[in-house]
């Protein structure tokens, strides 16, 4: 069973000049623990796709299945059956709290939903593995009747863990505005993972970061992915695709290609065509791939390095 399955998704906005179609029949499948990289030229609908997955955007047409059961975004059912968190590009507008700790601990989605009997029952979206394996799509979140202090403690504990994981524990007391861009972006990711998401959508989170901070973010996200979180990584940088299991290319609101990164960089679109899918679609491959291609016949057809380290493996010491 797929974690999330989207088919023929249309998103249409009303603008003063008429309708603007942001997605035109996009389709996507996501599995638990999978890392999907979404690329596409400016304005191809990448971000809208991310917002639809996160349940933040109404769809005009199409079907979304969560664990095999249909579900509509922006509804309570969507929120409770699947925990999706999204992190955006701009590091400055994502913090809600004044200090690092306060920001991570601000989790209104996890806090305070009333019990019908007026008791202080609160739904903590603790996703239990049993719930997902039994396929009960609508009950992946368990409602715990916990005393308030215990729940506060639970959130504090998770917040502390998230900050430790993101390397922000030491600055927990600092005001958010004193952080660097890389730290702010890691803070946004920390706040997202406190919710223990099934899917984490990262929308160009490394654009504003310099290369060393970019690698910090890669490492932390890889850690999460290893723990079973499905990652949707929206990016402009093709040198980040080696991180992914699958590459999705968006073009004019549709998924123009979906496949593994090696085929994307090395395979021609069809037997009769020359050049790789990547080049045919107007993208510039990363340097390691470009060099590997120049090596031509010296490399076996199955040898398809994606990074400098992989390319160096063909050199015999």
């Amino acid at each position: 069973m797929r974690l999330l399955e989207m088919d023929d998704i249309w998103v249409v906005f009303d603008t003063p000049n008429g309708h603007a179609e942001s997605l035109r029949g996009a389709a996507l499948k996501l599995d638990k623990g999978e890392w999907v990289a979404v690329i596409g030229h400016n304005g191809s609908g990448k971000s809208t796709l991310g917002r639809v997955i996160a349940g933040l955007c109404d769809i005009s047409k199409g079907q979304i299945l969560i664990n095999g059961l249909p579900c509509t975004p922006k509804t309570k059912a969507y929120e409770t059956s699947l925990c999706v968190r999204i992190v955006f590009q701009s590091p400055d507008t994502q913090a809600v709290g004044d200090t690092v700790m306060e920001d991570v601990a601000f989790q209104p989605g996890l806090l305070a939903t009333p019990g019908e009997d007026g008791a202080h029952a609160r739904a903590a979206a603790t996703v239990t593995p049993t719930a997902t394996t039994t396929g009960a799509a609508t009950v992946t979140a368990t409602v715990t009747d916990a005393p308030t202090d215990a729940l506060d403690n639970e959130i504090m504990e998770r917040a502390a863990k998230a900050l430790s994981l993101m390397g922000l524990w030491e600055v927990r007391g600092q005001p958010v505005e004193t952080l660097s861009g890389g730290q702010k972006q890691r803070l946004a990711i920390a706040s997202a993972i406190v919710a223990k998401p099934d899917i984490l959508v990262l929308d160009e989170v490394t654009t504003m970061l310099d290369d060393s901070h970019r690698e910090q973010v890669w490492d932390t996200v890889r850690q999460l992915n290893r723990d079973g979180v499905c990652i949707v990584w929206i990016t402009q940088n093709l040198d980040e695709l080696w991180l992914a299991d699958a590459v999705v290319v968006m073009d004019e609101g549709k998924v123009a290609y979906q496949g593994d990164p090696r085929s994307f960089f090395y395979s021609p679109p069809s037997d009769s065509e020359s050049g790789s899918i990547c080049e045919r679609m107007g993208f510039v491959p990363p340097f390691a791939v470009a060099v590997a291609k120049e090596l031509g016949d010296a490399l076996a057809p199955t040898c398809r390095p994606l990074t400098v380290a992989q390319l160096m493996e063909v050199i015999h010491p």
Partner: protein
Amino acid sequence: MTIVVTGLSIRGSRSTWLPSNEAGASSRHLLDDVTGTFASGALTLVIGASGAGKSTLLRAVAGLLPPEAGTVHVDGQPVYRGRKPTREALLQMSYVAQFPEEQLFAGTVKGEVRYSLRPYRLDASEESRRIEAALKAGGIPLALSQASPLTLSGGQKRRLATASSIAPNAPWLIMDEPTAGLDAAAIHRLLSLFAGWKASEQMAGDGDLNNPTPRGGIVIATHHIGPLLRYADSIWMLKNGRLEGIHSVSDVFANPDLLVELGVGVPEELRLMEELRKQGIAVSGIPNAKELATAMLASGRISPVNQQASRFMPAKSPNPSTAQVGHTIVGSSFPVATPEETQASSGSVVDPRAKWWFFACLTVGLFVQNSWLGLGVFALLLVLVIRFVHFRIQSLVRTLSPILWLMGFSVLLSGLTVTFQPSHALSVSVDWLHAETTLRGVCEFALAIGVGGLIPATMTRLEMKKGLELSLGRLSRIGVPVEAVSLSLTLILRFLPLLRQEVSRFSAIASSRAKVPTKPGRLRPSSLPSAVIPLVLSMLRLGEDFASALEARGLRNFRSRGRKPISSRLNRQSVSVILSGGLLFLGLFSLRFL
């Protein structure tokens, strides 16, 4: 012709437009004694980790941020006269801010470019020729020239903003992070724009093709050096506000450790060269992919054994590429929270409800005063409280100073008596008795603002929100949307610092485009539209981003019914704050009867 920077130093300050990641560091040097020369006819990259001072340097050079020490000269002429840039210097430079698409404001695409040309006072035919040339160079179809810039796509907006910056054909082009958010095709277009600019610049000098003397150059600050590196003629390396060195591209290719020491990432091509060198495969110069492949082939070291398919086929092979940089590795080395620390960090000690109560008591205690003595005692108390919470009184006075001036003026005005004499002469006198009544009211008001100023100083925004929710929670039973109200208040407070930052940002951009020398943070009426429209758009965008971020946290809709605020028991400190608030009020109230 050159830009010469001598001993440039800038400290962080709240009043000027600083890059957001640099603004927090108010006391340290953002730029520390930077000295160097930007050569003409060259593309100079300014690189460094975030917060190294790249953007600050560019703004200082472009006449948007007067330095505290040091000078900037363009073509021998000083850029600043006092705190103001000179008009001559501004005319020499086109500054392109980060995300320049946010600066668009005109009604039409053509008008946008024309606005940038206005300070150069060209005749009509030359102006249209320049507009057309700039749109063409920017890759914007002429058919769009009457369209509104706001209806363009994101990529087109960026190109239009770049086109309006190059239209004036100023000798110097100064760009902050021009590749951020661009896809590969757009970066390619930008690079060819630079190439064209450089070619025309070398011709533009004295027209002597054999011996060109270029008028100016391109200066680019970037954190994403990969795409631009091989096109640069010289590279300024900044670290913690200091200029570590000026290097050529071949220096950097020969010694990638220069980048490692700077704390910026090493681009893939340099990593590969370094690895090949370690393996004894010599590569020199600034090789492209083909040349590197040739070197690898020539070494005869490509092993068929190492190419076993299984090593390259797993979708996610463990990749050590991040470890090669040799720094900033995230992982187990981070300090981790211990359970005791986690417990200790669960929020502030005093309950926000107690703080609200205390301030409420204080405020009511102020308004029951009926004598100067009472007000004096209250002012003394306020000073004590301010000292107790370690609040900097200067910052309050600075914020309040315009209000205090206004108050002083109204006191004077209320005491003024104007009488018309029968001889048509005016007699003006001041009636101090009248003035005193006003003065007392005004003082009460000022003190109340003082109390109000303490609230944000002692509580974080979310504490204020929680305190409001907990204290007013019962009102939600009678239909008052307490949660919505308290959240809105919190958000407004969240927006104020951003607003201040955006105002100074757009006023700087406006003055740079209009070439009107103004002090940083000030705005001329003539450049009002070019600052206010982008400002409003930017605030809307910020609001939208912020709403998305909140939604992403799971804050989707307010529960209209049955929402019960969670109350927890007050701890001892909170109880004592509540009691002292009450006692304080009683004390203040008794002052009435003295």
